[in-house]
């Protein structure tokens, strides 16, 4: 099988899985679970094979498929891997089996529908990442809403309806304006070149006046910023996370939130470079606000899921900061940080789910001293907490360090070149944000794990083999990215450079940046 075909297999395997599950008889819950797990593992293996064969020395798309889909509009079913998406595709495929395995004992109602929805969202997420045609991208992008709506709404907690409607309506609002911008953009391409195309590569070439760019960027950015989410567009996230079942939270935190940052990186910023350069102080400021605000709110939560939810806001602030830095370090760091957050947040949500299955409460006050009662659990929890804090040797450090270094360097150079010090101040504030990150996570861990043993519904059993394996996989990935990120970063390097070139302008990137912040 050719690699391009393999990529198609990876993408469509979840759909096949969905159909296969639908064909299973009612009540065969265990069969559904194992089938779903098997399909996810197959997908992971196929993705891993592609990942291995992905050539970091080749710029642009690899394993590309391009066939006309709606020929009248120049829409192509065009998918492929490039440096932008390769890590995220890998992350998505990696989390797939873990989501299914993590839900083995948690989901008891409508098992078939649940796994069908997990497959659907897996399909939509992968599709969003690999799509290279704006129409196809948008279709996948919006399709993601449906399974998430169902997952939160059917298997969620008490206020699940409120949470899921809030999630869908919030995100859909952003998407609607993005749709307007998409249409306008394609039309502008047609006006300029007489060619109707939705291909990213073609759309990058559209040159628009800066005021139009600003409007379109605003529309795209709204949609992406809601998904990220950036303060002040974040309030759907805590509710969604709290009400979602574990699998929903894992998918949401693990992959879905990266859609926003990926969207900025692949589309939002490169499509409208001039407007982006003008908006960079704003983006940086909002990123820093997200970092600090999310951390402060995480500090005062009493629901363990909310703590992690707010921490996500904070962590994704770093990603945005890295992207806005337009510095190679920052961009690469942003990509790593996306993956890192995907791993740690997914792991933490899985762990919260595990304890919830045992104790049926998410109230932090009900817990204490778990380290004594559940030593293995606590070790894993501590590792993930520290990764979330960004401790060296974990993936969190790699991401945060590179992002902060990049953000600082670019704004420092701009400042030295006579630009305003605003960006520099923002970057420095972001560095200070690492303190808050440690504060809320360690306080959380302290109240959760340490002190006198206080476990509702004791005695509770420690992790079983399935749970240990799931967490071990995540922890292994966390350390791999922390100790030796070079192979992963190698794969994204050319894309990061392309992003930088597209946004910062070709020849004198540094100079342009200096001007950008001087304005």
């Amino acid at each position, binding site marked *: 099988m050719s690699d391009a075909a393999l990529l198609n297999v990876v993408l469509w395997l979840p759909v096949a899985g969905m159909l296969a599950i639908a064909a299973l008889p009612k009540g065969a819950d265990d069969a559904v679970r194992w089938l779903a797990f098997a399909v996810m593992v197959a997908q992971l293996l196929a993705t891993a094979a592609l990942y291995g064969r992905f050539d970091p020395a080749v710029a642009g798309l690899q394993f590309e498929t391009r066939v*006309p*889909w*709606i*020929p*009248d*509009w120049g*829409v192509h079913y065009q998918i492929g891997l490039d440096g932008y998406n390769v890590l995220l595709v890998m992350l998505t495929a990696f989390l797939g089996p873990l989501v299914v395995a993590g839900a083995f004992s948690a989901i008891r109602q*409508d098992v078939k*529908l649940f796994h069908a929805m997990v497959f659907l969202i897996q399909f939509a997420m992968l599709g969003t990442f690999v799509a290279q045609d704006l*129409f196809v991208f*948008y*279709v*996948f*992008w*919006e*399709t993601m*809403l*449906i399974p998430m*709506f*169902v997952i939160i*709404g*059917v298997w969620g907690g008490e206020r*699940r*309806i409120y949470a*899921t*409607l809030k999630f*869908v*309506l919030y995100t*859909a*609002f952003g998407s*609607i*304006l993005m*749709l*307007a911008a998409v*249409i*306008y953009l*394609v*039309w502008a391409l*047609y006006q300029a070149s007489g060619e109707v195309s939705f291909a990213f590569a073609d759309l990058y070439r559209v040159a628009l006046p800066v005021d139009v760019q600003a409007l379109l960027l605003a529309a795209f950015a709204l949609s992406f910023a809601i998904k990220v989410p950036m303060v002040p567009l974040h309030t759907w996230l805590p509710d969604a996370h709290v009400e979602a079942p574990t699998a929903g939270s894992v998918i949401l935190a693990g992959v879905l939130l990266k859609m926003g940052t990926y969207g900025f990186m692949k589309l939002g910023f490169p499509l409208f470079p001039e407007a982006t350069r003008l908006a960079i102080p704003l983006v940086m400021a909002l990123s820093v606000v997200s970092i600090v605000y999310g951390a402060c709110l995480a500090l005062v939560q009493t629901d363990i899921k909310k703590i992690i939810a707010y921490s996500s806001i904070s962590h994704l602030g770093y990603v945005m900061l890295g992207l806005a830095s337009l510095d190679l370090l920052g961009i690469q760091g942003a990509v790593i940080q996306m993956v890192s957050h995907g791993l740690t947040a997914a792991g933490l949500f899985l762990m919260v789910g595990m304890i919830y299955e045992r104790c049926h409460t998410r109230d932090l006050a009900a817990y204490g001293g778990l380290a004594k009662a559940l030593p293995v659990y606590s070790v894993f929890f501590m590792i993930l907490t520290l990764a979330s804090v960004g401790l060296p040797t974990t993936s969190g450090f790699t991401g945060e360090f590179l992002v902060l270094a990049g953000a600082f360097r670019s704004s420092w150079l701009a400042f030295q070149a006579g630009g305003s010090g605003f960006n520099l101040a923002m970057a420095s504030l972001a560095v200070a944000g690492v303190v808050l990150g440690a504060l809320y996570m360690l306080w959380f861990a302290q109240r959760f794990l340490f002190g006198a043993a206080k476990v509702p519904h004791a005695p509770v059993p420690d992790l079983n083999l399935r749970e240990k394996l799931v967490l071990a996989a995540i922890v292994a990935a966390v350390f791999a990215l922390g100790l030796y990120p070079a192979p992963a970063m190698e794969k994204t390097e050319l894309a990061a450079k392309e992003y930088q070139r597209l946004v910062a302008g070709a020849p004198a990137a540094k100079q342009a940046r200096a001007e950008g912040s001087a304005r």
Partner: protein
Amino acid sequence: MSWQAVIVGMLPENLLLAGMVAIIVLEIAGGPRRAALPLAVLAVAAATLAALLLALAGAEGAPFPGQFSVTPPTLLAKAIVIGLALPVLLLSSDEFSGGEFHLLLLASLYGVCLLLSSDSFLTLFLGLEIMSLPVYALVLLAFRRPQSAEAALKYLVLSGAASATFLLGVSFLYGGTGSLGIEAFAVALEASEPMAVAAVALVVIAFFLKAAVVPFHTWAPDAYEGASIPVTAYMATVVKAGAVLALLRLFGTAPLSPRAIELLAILPLVSIVWGNLAAMRQPGFRRMIAYSSIAHAGYLFYAFLGAGAGRFQAVVFYVLAYGLTNLAAFASIPAAADDAARDRLDSLKGLFQREPYAALVLAMAMLSLAGIPPFPGFVAKFLVFKNVMAAGYTTYAVLGLVASYLGIYFYLRVVQYAFMSAPEAVPAPGTVGRAALAASVLCLAPVVLLTLFPGWVIALL
């Protein structure tokens, strides 16, 4: 006028006519009443097929020059609209066993066909009335419901007012040009003397009334609620499509003048907002669909803002996607003890546990109507707004899209009821009938096709 042209060019109409005649004969002969349904299905299916084949064969002709002509696009539109009646017929099997429903339906369909092929206001008027008159009776047919007469009256009076308005406009056009050909309308669109302007306005208003655009929509919620499910389904899809396609015929492919733009953008925009907002708190399914259809009428007329062949493409595709998903939704409503209970959205609670297939189809239909990808409703909406944007009306396009956002909530509410709410204990929930199942499959298959290969259909249009 050659007989061959009449037989071939009007084959769909003729097949419908044959169906009608057969049903009448059946009634007169006192044959088994249950045979009416298969006969009607056969006739409609044959007509659909005929129209489709003729369209694909590129048939063109004017059996009655100056009055009636066919071209492949019109035949295709005809095929789509007639085809939409098939699920309606299947839906009716639980409710109407007699022949009168089928006869009236076929008659109304005949009117739609005339409408789509008319070259003069004479045929147009005839088509409009042949389409509408049976529907008044159809609404009335649900006489088991006490409100059906009220619904029929409201529909009849306001629809009659629409006819009168239409005629006044036509007479003005006639006065201005001395002709009743539909080209007179295009001429009047460009003209600026008061009478021509008024004529255009009156004709457009008449179609707004028929298609239920705010503020001419008031009959729709009441009539939809008062009618029975198949009739509501028919009104919401075929009748609405007929009205819009007829007006499309009048507007042709020429770009709109600024005056026409305002006419065709502002009220439909208001319609989208109004329909989407008012639907939010409806407790009944049909009334909700009525408001939804008011909003969709807005999108349909929005498509007129685009120019050229894209306008036709957008309207027809929209009609197809909207009609199919709407009918699929109607087909998924489970039977209940009585009509009022069946109509209540609350009775959908817990549907997925009882009827997973129906719930899935319903959810898909709702999401498609909401315009959420990957369902065809999205592609249809995209097509509309793409054309609007391409014609340069960026502001209208953005406003329309934002207005369409308002609609998402109430569609999702239905999904929420079906999947996420515990079933209500009190009424013994019924199941979806076999015929309804067939109807939903009939809708679902093309929906899946449209989802996976929208390009196919678009290329055809």
